[in-house]
């Protein structure tokens, strides 16, 4: 049930005589203004001012109160938020206050050259005289008000309820307001400020707490939690638990009762359009296009190849023809004949011919005949290495050289042979293993798959772990990738080692003088460093290979298997983003928040306000009163009135009763009542007060103010019982 503003301009201002006082309840959240003789204020609006820029004219304008948000689209509010004239509950920015009063009197329909009505305006308990006198000055000087009276809103509310028979002449007024909470004792119908106490907590803090908690809980929907919306949510859903701890335990256990108490706000959500799988035709069409393109590419490559073969063949023919001609030419004419062709000798032509032949063979895709050459070589190996087995002393120097050559050739080919053999054996081993696995799989496919999966998980974790260690030296908080920068962040192992080496190098020899590099071994340092780095990237090791193998095997066998990608395995935070949003993602759930937020009225230290909460304030207030009168104390606690906007929370009366019972002597009478209308009663009380015939005895004029001075204003106090 959000508060509703009334900002229609009134048309009957002139019907009220100049003796009719104007009554203003100047609350930190709402401003209410009306006529003393009435029971409802005429104009009510949020006590805020905005000074945005009009988008089309560029003019800075003043907008007071809350308006239809749809109209605010014409204004650029980015540079000025809503501003309040209040700090805590004291008016301190009188420029803003003036805008508010302008708007209020304007909407009251004020005409003429000044406001010719006495004004009763509310203020906080023990308002600093500076604020009070500034307010007086503003009303006297700018608006020409004939006389003013200041009163306390909570006191007016108490008096109004006393008149209605809700509470007695002795009692306590408890007023949890917007920014502050007061407890004011009343004795004989008059407030005793000596016994009053104030805790700087109120509805503002509750809303702010709820807003913060919700935006922390649902960071994705942060922009939804505007002040106005959260305020509405607070008024709709928040309640005060009789016993916070047991209520929270209910929710912790997930009891049925807690489920019933959980509220849910469904944000507008449109299911994303389901993507239709492409039709058969579409698939066929795409395949055809792909096929066509592939065909064209193949044709192009073929054409290119054939043209190259053609070219090479032509060249070969030319060279062969040249060689044939050369045979017919006489030896003496060779140089002159060759000069024309551009070649120097017969050998050159021949080598060019072999080259062209080789390229031709390559272009035609025939295998190189190296293989056949080696094959050819193997049978006559003995012949090839003929000199090896002959002792050195039986050989000529030429043969010795030849023998050395043969030896090295033989060792090389042997090595090649061995490598081949080894590769072949490995291949065999792998095949054998695969066969074994295949057998196991066939034996029990389920179990096999299960084992494979387990092994995959195990291995991938191990690989991940090592990767983390490498990049983040032993840091295992687990949130290193999701923004843990700055908390426990370390250099990787190599970087740390480099750091260590450099610092030791710097400190070892540091006797006031840098001698690094004077000795040759100083430079070994850098070798050490680069060695560290090499260690890090020595290529994929066994685990990686095994992981790849299992992964491919699983992909073959398990249709549901999705290998963890390089990024996926190290960034689990990425996962939820891939998931499409569901209706549940757009639900704001209020569970514990419903009673956690208003609970700060009873435990202000939860938001770092180190003062007593609502229930203890009663004890403080009675102690401060120090009346030493058992009867009076009992009368006070048997007429406790809760008023003010924050007393609307359901359950506050029961909770207060339980809380006060704890701090009062056993058996004391305790009666707590909520004001008839906790929000409006202060204004109504003030209006009733201002319409009393003796009201004029409580006001002061501009003349009084200037004659009596600030010290008198400091001690100015209204008498509430007329």
């Amino acid at each position: 049930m959000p508060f509703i503003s009334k900002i229609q301009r009134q048309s009957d201002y002139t019907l009220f005589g100049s003796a009719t006082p104007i009554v203003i309840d100047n609350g930190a959240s709402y401003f209410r203004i009306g006529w003393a003789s009435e029971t409802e204020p005429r104009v009510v609006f949020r006590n805020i001012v905005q000074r945005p820029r009009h988008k089309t004219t560029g003019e800075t304008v003043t907008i007071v109160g809350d308006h239809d948000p749809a109209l605010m689209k014409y204004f650029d509010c980015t540079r000025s938020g809503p501003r309040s004239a209040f700090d805590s509950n004291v008016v301190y920015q009188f420029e803003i206050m003036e805008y508010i009063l302008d708007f209020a009197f304007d909407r009251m329909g004020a005409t003429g050259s000044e406001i010719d009505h006495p004004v009763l305006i509310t203020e906080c308990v023990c308002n600093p005289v500076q604020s009070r006198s500034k307010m007086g000055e503003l009303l006297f000087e700018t608006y020409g008000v004939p006389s003013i009276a200041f009163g306390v809103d909570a006191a007016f509310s108490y008096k109004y309820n006393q008149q209605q028979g809700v509470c007695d002449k002795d009692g306590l007024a408890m007023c949890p307001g917007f920014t502050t909470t007061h407890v004011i004792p009343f004795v004989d119908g008059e407030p005793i400020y000596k016994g009053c106490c104030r805790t700087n907590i109120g509805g503002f803090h509750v809303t702010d707490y709820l807003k913060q908690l919700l935006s922390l809980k649902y960071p994705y929907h942060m922009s939804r939690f505007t002040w106005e919306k959260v305020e509405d949510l607070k008024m709709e859903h928040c309640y005060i638990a009789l016993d916070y701890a047991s209520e929270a335990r209910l929710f912790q256990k997930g009891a049925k009762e807690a489920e019933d108490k959980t509220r849910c706000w469904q944000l507008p959500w449109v299911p994303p359009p389901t993507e239709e799988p492409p039709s058969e035709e579409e698939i066929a069409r795409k395949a055809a296009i792909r096929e066509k393109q592939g065909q064209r590419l193949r044709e192009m490559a073929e054409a290119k190849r054939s043209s190259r073969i053609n070219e090479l063949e032509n060249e070969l023919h030319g060279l062969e023809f040249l060689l044939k001609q050369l045979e017919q030419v006489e030896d003496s004419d060779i140089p002159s004949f060759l000069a024309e062709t551009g070649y120097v000798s017969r050998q050159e032509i021949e080598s060019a011919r072999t080259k062209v032949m080789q390229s031709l063979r390559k272009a035609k895709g025939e295998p190189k005949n190296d293989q056949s050459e080696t094959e050819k070589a193997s049978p006559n190996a003995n012949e090839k290495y003929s000199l090896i087995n002959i002792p050195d002393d039986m050989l000529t120097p030429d043969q010795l050289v030849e023998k050395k050559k043969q030896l090295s050739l033989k060792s090389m080919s042997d090595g090649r042979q061995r490598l081949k053999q080894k590769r072949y054996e490995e291949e065999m081993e792998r095949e054998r293993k695969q066969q074994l696995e295949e057998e196991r799989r066939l034996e029990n496919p389920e179990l096999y798959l299960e084992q494979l999966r387990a092994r995959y998980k195990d291995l991938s974790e191990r690989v991940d772990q090592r990767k983390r260690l490498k990049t983040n030296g032993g840091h295992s908080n687990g949130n290193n990738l999701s923004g843990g920068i700055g908390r426990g962040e370390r250099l990787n192992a190599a970087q740390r080692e480099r750091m260590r080496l450099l610092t030791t190098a710097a400190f070892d020899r540091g006797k006031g003088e840098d001698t690094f590099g004077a000795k040759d071994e100083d430079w070994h340092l850098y070798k050490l460093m680069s060695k560290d780095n090499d260690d890090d990237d020595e290529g994929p090791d066994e685990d990686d290979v095994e992981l790849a193998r299992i992964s491919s095997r699983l992909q073959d066998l398990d249709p549901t298997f999705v290998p963890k990608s390089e990024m996926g395995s190290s960034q689990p935070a990425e996962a939820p983003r891939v998931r499409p949003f569901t209706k549940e993602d757009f639900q704001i759930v209020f569970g514990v928040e419903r009673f956690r937020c208003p609970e700060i009225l009873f435990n202000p230290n939860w938001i770092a306000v180190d003062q007593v909460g609502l229930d203890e304030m009663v004890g403080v207030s009675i102690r401060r009163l120090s009346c030493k009168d058992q009867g009076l104390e009992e009368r006070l606690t048997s007429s406790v009135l809760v008023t003010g906007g924050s007393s609307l929370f359901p359950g506050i009366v029961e909770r207060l009763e339980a809380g006060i019972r704890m701090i009062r002597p056993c058996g004391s009478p305790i009666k707590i009542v909520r004001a008839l209308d906790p929000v409006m009663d202060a204004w109504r009380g003030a209006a009733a007060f201002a319409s009393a015939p003796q009201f004029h005895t409580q006001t002061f004029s501009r003349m009084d103010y200037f004659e009596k001075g600030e010290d008198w204003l400091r001690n100015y106090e209204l008498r509430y019982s007329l």
Partner: protein
Amino acid sequence: MSMKDKMEAEVVEAELVLPSYLSFKRVQMYEKYPKGQARGRHWKHLKQIIQAENYQNYPPDEPNYVNIESPPSIHPCKRICDITGFEAPYYDPRTNLRYANADVFKVIRSLPNEYVQRYLALRNAAIVLK
């Protein structure tokens, strides 16, 4: 009212914008704060106001804005889990957050630092860099 002519009809209709001239005022806003004139801060913070009140010159039993403030509670502060609001028997020395159980512990350990600080800021325990 040339300015009004330029504004959208519905804005004018709702009388959203406070007029700059009001007949019932002796001194208009534009006379008090002429446009285009630089002016310093013409108001005091609540702290400065209180300081200027010189409450120390008055008898201590006379109620004033400062001495009517409530004292700190004599009861020990109920500790609640910063995330869930449940009773919090544990405290994480790394993040300084209070937590209710192992599940919440997992959550707070996976929270980015920014969120940890915002949770701490709720009870004014965040690290403030100045």
